[in-house]
């Protein structure tokens, strides 16, 4: 019996080692371990073994079975390995072939900048609001302390529909509309399209965008204005950006200022970009004029605040080094794809 088992084992092992395909392994399994297999036959003949020898023989049979099964499993794994190996080798690709790109469009450079600006101010607790582009003269001028006959109202600057209605020349009227609602405190920015009667050239467009900002509360100071705008430009242009405030005049703010930032190309040393000055003028700002507060129904003795306005295109052109404003409105695909 023992010899027989040894012989079965030996033969099975040889056949397994010789097997080159999965099917050969299966043949071995069926021939040895199957219902009609040799080992099964041995087990069936156990009844001829003397009862006292049965445990020992039984054990021997089981050992033989495990040995063969183990060998089969090993062979299977080896074969699978080889097969995978073969597949991987045959599947080598040229990774430098062109990519298959999803054809995604591009946002307008103005939108990219605007979203950045919006994100910064939203992060500081500002609401983003809008106002009409076709606007009453009252909101665009009068309520902003620009009375009738002010030179700024001259026809050469403003597109009029009729004497009361015009295309807004600035986003500042949105300030008034928000203040009139009477909900205080106010922290807002108002981006939007504005219109001025300028002929189209490399630096002018009769239609462009501004971003207006305003904060009104009980104790808002000029120092807060400085701090807020400094924080804003640091986020927009980088933490090293320096700011400079120069006195200026706007009818709807007092005191008023213009803000310069250190040139973000040369860091303030002076270059072609900043015309050698090291500074770039970026926005106008100031404390909301008490008259403007009053006209909008806010008591200037209780509340004060600041406001600022910046030209979106100006920042877009600076940021992306675009040298001709007309490109922004031509919509050439080769231009838009760069942003």
């Amino acid at each position, binding site marked *: 019996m023992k010899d027989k088992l040894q012989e079965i084992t030996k033969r099975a092992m040889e056949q397994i080692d010789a097997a080159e395909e999965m099917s050969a392994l299966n043949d071995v399994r069926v021939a040895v371990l199957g219902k009609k297999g040799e080992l099964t036959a041995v087990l069936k003949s156990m009844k001829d073994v003397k009862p006292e020898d049965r445990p020992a023989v039984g054990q021997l049979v089981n050992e033989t079975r495990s040995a063969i099964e183990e060998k089969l499993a090993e062979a299977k794994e080896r074969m699978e390995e080889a097969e995978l190996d073969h597949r991987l080798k045959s599947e080598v690709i040229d990774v430098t072939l062109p990519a298959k790109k999803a054809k995604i469009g591009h946002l307008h450079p103005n939108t990219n900048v605007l979203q950045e600006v919006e994100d910064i101010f939203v992060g500081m607790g500002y609401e983003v609001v809008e106002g009409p582009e076709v606007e009453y003269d009252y909101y665009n001028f009068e309520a902003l302390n620009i009375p009738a006959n002010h030179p700024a109202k001259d026809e050469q600057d403003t597109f*009029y*529909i009729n004497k009361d209605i015009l*295309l807004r020349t600035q986003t500042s009227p949105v300030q008034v509309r928000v203040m009139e609602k009477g909900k205080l405190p106010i922290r807002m920015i108002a981006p939007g399209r504005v219109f001025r009667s300028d002929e189209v050239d490399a630096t002018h467009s*009769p239609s462009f965008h501004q971003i207006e900002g305003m904060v009104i509360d009980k104790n808002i100071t000029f120092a*807060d204005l400085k*701090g807020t705008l400094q924080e804003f430009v640091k986020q927009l242009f980088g933490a090293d950006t320096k700011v400079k405030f120069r006195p200026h005049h706007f009818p709807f703010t007092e*005191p008023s200022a213009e803000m310069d930032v250190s040139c973000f190309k040369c860091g303030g040393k002076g270059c072609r970009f900043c015309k050698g000055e090291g500074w770039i003028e970026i926005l106008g700002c100031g404390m909301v004029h008490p008259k403007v507060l009053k006209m909008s129904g806010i008591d200037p003795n209780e509340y004060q605040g600041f406001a600022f306005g910046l030209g979106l295109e100006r920042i877009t052109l600076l940021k992306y080094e675009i040298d001709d404003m007309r490109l922004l409105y031509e*919509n050439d695909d080769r231009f838009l794809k760069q942003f």
Partner: protein
Amino acid sequence: MRTSLNWIKDLVPGLEATPQEFMDAMTLSGSKVEFYECMDKDLEKIVVGQIEKIEKHPDADKLVICQVNVGSETIQIVTGAPNVYEGAKVPVVLDGGRVAGGHDGEKTEGGIKIKKGKLRGVESNGMMCSIEELGSDRNMFPDAPEYGIYIFPEDTQVGADAVKVLGLDDAVVEYEITSNRVDCFAVLGIAREAAATFKKEFVPQVVTKTGNDEDVNDYIKVSVEATDLCPRYTARVVKNIKIAPSPEWMQKRLRAQGIRPINNIVDITNYVMEEYGQPMHAYDMDTIEGHEIRVRRANAGETFVTLDGQERNVDENVLMICDGKKAIGIAGIMGGENSMITDNVSTMLFEAACFDGTNIRLSSKRVGLRTDASGKFEKGLDPNNAMDAMDRACQLVEELGAGQVVGGAIDIYTKKMEGRRLPFEPDKYNHMLGTDISPEDMLEYFKRLDLGYDEKTNEVLVPSWRQDLESYADLAEEVARFYGYDRIPTSLPSGEATTGRLSEKLKVEKIVRNVAQFCGFSQGMTYSFESPKVFDKLLLDKDDVLRQAIVISNPLGEDFSIMRTLPLNGMMTSLATNANRRNKDVRLFEMGNIYLPKQLPLTELPEERMQLTLGMYGEGDFFTMKGVIEEITSQLGMDAKLTYDPASGKNFLHPGRQANVLYQDKVIGYLGEVHPKVCANYGMKERTYIAVVDMPAVMEFVSFDKKYEGIAKFPAATRDISMVVPKEILVGQIEEVFETKGGNYLESYELFDIYEGNQILKGHKSVAYSLTFRAKDKNLEEEDITAAMNRILKALEDMGIQLRK
């Protein structure tokens, strides 16, 4: 505004600053300096020389050899200039020096270096200069020869610095003065600011009493009829006028101010205009009839010849200066040809008046003439300045010996402009600025600006030239300016916390932009105004309501004259630009308003409707566009099915390839292939597709309120149906049958084949759908499906659709 820096330094004797230092400090205190230019920046080693001897050049006919005494030595210079003579005093640039440019007036950046050398074999140790080579011109130096070396007056000192002698050792400073600071459109105003900025004393010249013992009233009578337009009119008379060039010091200053010296009388009026910011005018007394001046409005339809010889139309809105019989000047704008000063003048009337700024501005526009004078008046001058300027001018007349000033002055000043008193409120200023500046410091700043302080009433006394100072906020700015904007601390707003956010509308627009972008569309921007011809280009019917556009009353031209009522023109123009430039497969979108008037002419604001406009040519078709729209609505939580109505009636679209897009039976936009005629109108050769989504319509349905629905646990069953459909039946109608008859178990349906051709009955198409049924709570039984299918098939058959078995 521009000033000579030397002039400012004369008025602020303690001021010692380089032009750059001056520029920086003035800008930070509020008088923004745009730039400065040193007139001598390219002039070096140039002295006054005297030609002692001239000899012919041995080898050149047109050259001469000069021996020139330059003070320290006599040097030999070869020149080709035709106007040199022995004894002439001339500017000489020495070896190693620089001049500004050539004598053709062309300036060279950095100047031209002059070195000694040989001219046709003869040694030349320098160069004699023309006025152009010194960086100026004959306009500023009318005494310079047209071609040749500049010749100095005989009394000029040999060896002196020629640049100084010519007054070119100055810097011209150009300021951007804001409209509220009328006082700074004068040298005196700038000097006052400079003194305050540099903490130095401001020392204006002292104006002395002038005039003989005659009385001006014996010469002239003045009446102001339009006192509303002429708050003040002052006049004096000068007789025995001797016209002559003005002195060198005055010419130098005028030149630095950019004003050409002419003669003593003209120069004095210009000088005073620069100094005081007060325009003056001089009339020839002998042309004034009736010894009388009347200031009145012009008559309607009147014409008048100004001193430039032009005939001007004036009307009753324009203020005129008249004598007893006729008009002799347009007030504040320009005098008349009939009363102008000539070289033969013997007696003149000097006028310094104050006219209403707004009226001058409007008149100047009406008459079509803007002058230096009107430019000053329209800012609204301080009437108190007029008499001071007049007296200053008369002082200069006497000083220059230009004539004899008649005693007394005419002064018609109906309503005196007073200064203002404002409470001194240091706490308010500090509260506004976020500072802690002491009241003493504030008063010190005010004092420097000639703002007084009344201790008894605790009031700040604002002089009449500072009409811009009206309230505490204005005074806070004065404090800030001289404390220094840079010294004000920085802080962030305190107080109630607020939540930052985009409005709902902006949030939706952002999502839509992003979807369009991810569908391959790039964002363009186009103008809101366009040409009325657009409507014809887009084939709109003559009575189409969209032709009712808002018209701009003063447009840049017809092409920008109406506010768009539909957004297609900008898109088509942009696509055509791309196509003309051979850009392939272009997809653009724009998010912009259209402007729909509620009535015309406009009496209230129009409706501004935000439109998403998609446009494309090249790869893709109608159904690509449709896919983008459905992607957008899906991202906006609009989960119901969009429907498409081909009867959208858009003339600008292909009649068989257009549809309105409906959501819950409401039109939210349209799409289609652009009509070939419209394409041709824009020069587009390729098939072009557009879609417009009306954002306000979409806003009504947007929903971000999502609830989780369980994922189906039970298996689905599918049934395919294949149909032969009359051609005129739309696939959408078949789908409507599925929707209405499918019952609760119909989960989805999908078109998998559509075919028209030979194998199909003529006038028909073959359509095949796969329908998926599923129940949420059980395994479907065959009869559940059959019931639904029977309802569907019955309805289809009723529509004349044959089922292919």
